[in-house]
């Protein structure tokens, strides 16, 4: 054994020193896309990272945001902040305020991110003026999926306003069928409510859901919105509790329900499950009463935390570069149903569906019309504590018939006031 020691030592030392000279990009990305098309999209990210000389590892936390955040918080407390984390909206600014995030300004300048990233994402990715995150996509939350079969059978047009929508549902209910497919959960109930408030009164949406203005929450407009939500619960079937959103999606696309309100990740899932756009389902914006293009935006992004190991710092740069590359934005978003966060990507090539192309066109239109908002339900506007408190009230309202719209509006305001 002994005689091997010296050469072994030398090799090791040589190995170590070459190692230190050329930092080898490494990363460990924490995210919540554990399975399905999203996991496949992340796998593409990993493959690209490895192909460009990096060492990739990932921790997938299975779609429960609280578990991802718990992991992040415990890693930060233990002094091992992860190199890259999927985080969004106000969380980016909250974590930036703790002073633990990395500064990507040099890379951003070199790559010219400021010129190509959709302007509405800039303030989210640069909460204190420095780039701390790389946006992966833009999701549209206010999609209304309709069952083509059901609409044809009933002779109903896709509703444009909430009044149309209610009329359509009344007719469908009359015929003994389910109008809205829904799986109750705090986030999905709130997704629906996002579209309701926004479609009924865009100013109310901005004041209540973007600025957390409690007076707006107590207003007559909010009471009307809750009344509309109550009506919609009546258009749902009995089985909403414990049903997943994928099951609701399938209900609509199989023609067992007329409508499904959900973000554009549905497009990816539906197409993966073999449903066809225009044949099994139609995609339109959720009803708006103010006659324009509506767009509720949600975006996924990767936030980079400060590292001391040069390998991981190198890895962060490489990862950010790949995420922002047009090639990755295409592959990732085709798989995820969303659209690229870069404005300079042509969606007519590369396999984007009609619904996705519609999403991009509507985004541009909504920016022009000044109607673009970010999603409260999907954690793009107010702090988590306000959002969590609001979601509790909304999901309770959906679950409990005995709560009146007036009570709900007051509870919403009370819950938010309690947290400030």
């Amino acid at each position: 054994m002994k005689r091997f020691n010296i050469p072994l030592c030398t090799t090791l030392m040589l190995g170590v020193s070459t190692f230190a000279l050329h930092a080898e990009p490494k990363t460990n990305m924490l995210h919540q896309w554990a399975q399905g098309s999203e996991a496949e999209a992340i796998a593409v990210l990993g493959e690209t990272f490895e192909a460009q000389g990096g060492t990739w590892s990932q921790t997938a936390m299975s779609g429960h945001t609280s578990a991802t955040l718990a992991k992040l918080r415990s890693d930060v407390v233990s002094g091992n902040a992860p190199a890259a984390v999927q985080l969004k909206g106000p969380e980016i600014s909250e974590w930036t305020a703790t002073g633990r995030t990395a500064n990507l300004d040099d890379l951003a300048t070199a790559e010219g991110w400021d010129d190509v990233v959709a302007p509405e994402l800039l303030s989210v990715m640069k909460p204190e003026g420095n780039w701390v995150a790389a946006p992966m996509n833009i999701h549209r939350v206010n999609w209304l999926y309709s069952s083509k079969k059901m609409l044809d059978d009933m002779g109903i047009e896709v509703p444009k306003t909430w009044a149309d929508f209610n009329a359509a549902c009344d007719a469908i209910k009359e015929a003994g069928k389910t109008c809205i497919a829904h799986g109750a959960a705090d986030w999905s109930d709130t997704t629906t409510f996002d579209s309701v408030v926004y479609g009924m009164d865009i100013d109310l949406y901005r004041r209540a859901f973007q600025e957390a203005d409690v007076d707006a929450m107590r207003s007559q407009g909010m009471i009307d919105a809750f009344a509309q939500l109550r009506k919609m619960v009546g258009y749902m079937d009995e089985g909403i509790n414990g049903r997943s959103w994928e099951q609701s999606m399938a209900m609509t696309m199989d023609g067992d329900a007329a409508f499904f309100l959900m973000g554009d990740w549905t497009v990816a899932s539906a197409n993966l499950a073999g449903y066809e756009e225009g044949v099994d389902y139609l995609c339109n914006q959720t009803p708006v009463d103010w006659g324009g293009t509506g767009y509720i935006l949600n975006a996924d992004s990767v936030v980079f935390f400060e590292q001391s190991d040069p390998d991981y710092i190198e890895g962060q740069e490489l990862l950010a570069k790949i995420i922002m590359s047009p090639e990755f934005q295409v592959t990732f978003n085709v798989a995820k149903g969303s659209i690229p966060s870069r404005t300079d990507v042509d969606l007519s090539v590369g396999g984007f569906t009609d619904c996705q192309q519609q999403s991009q066109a509507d985004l541009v239109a909504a920016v022009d019309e000044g109607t673009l908002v970010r999603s409260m339900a999907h954690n793009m506007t107010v702090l988590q504590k306000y959002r969590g408190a609001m979601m509790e009230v909304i999901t309770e309202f959906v679950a409990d018939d005995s709560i009146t719209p007036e009570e709900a509006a007051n509870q919403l305001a009370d819950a938010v006031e309690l947290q400030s």
Partner: protein
Amino acid sequence: MSLPASSGGLGRWLGDHIAQIVLIPTLLASFAYVVLFSVWTFWLSVSTSTMLPDPTFSGFGEYAALWQSKRWTVSFSNLFVFGTFYVIGAMVVGTLLAILIDQRVKFEAVWRTIFLYPLAISFIVTGTVWRWIFHPQTGVELALHDMGWISAQFDWITDRDLALYVVVITAIWHASGFAMALILAGLRSVDGDIVKAAQIDGASVPRTYARVILPTIWPIFLAVAVVLLQFAIKTYDLVVALTQGGPGVATTVPAIVVFDLMFERGQIAQGSAAAVMILVALGIVLIPYALYMRWRKRQEGGDHG
């Protein structure tokens, strides 16, 4: 100990204190775990902590905010309702099963294993499977419909007044085998003469159990209750997998609120306040128990400590 040790000096000292010395590592760990972690949590609950722990003192405001939140008050009362029904229910079912098995049944080991196996199944899996069974569109109701009974209705899990009892039933399924195992073991240790005496007096079988056998093994019930209680307090995975706390907040339990506040919402101070309240609830139950045990020991004269 009062017995003389064999050698003198350091060796003698070591010999005398070996027990304490060996205990030290575990003790330090347990002390840190139980005391320091609790104190740390209490301190955070009165601090300004939000995203990350921050020791700056802020006051008891988070407790006030916590108690004004509907989700918390619902979850706290759920803990007492769930805990009571679960502990009593599991013990009643466990007792019944133990008595049945005690009737010199054939294949005793098979029966025992059937009732005990749920304890080996994780709460996550237990919750998931029972959700499949209870949900009207995947479980019993659908199966009954498929069999032709169209009007069959079995939708407790979607009913906000009944959903908590779905959690109770599922939890009883999980733990009653444990209660059975202990109680059965207790039944087997009862002195046959007492029972015979009761039989000669003409007591019926149920009466013999109720009046003679079960009262003699009451310490077992107490032990079972304590173990079940710690399951009840920690209940988290089961509810997450079974109902996600819904419909609405109807089946939320305190552990879920603690987790969400601390981790999802970045309100570490308020989440810590909620954790402290769980400890207080625990104290409400455990302190009388500890006092009772101490009193009982005094009654016995402390002869075997």
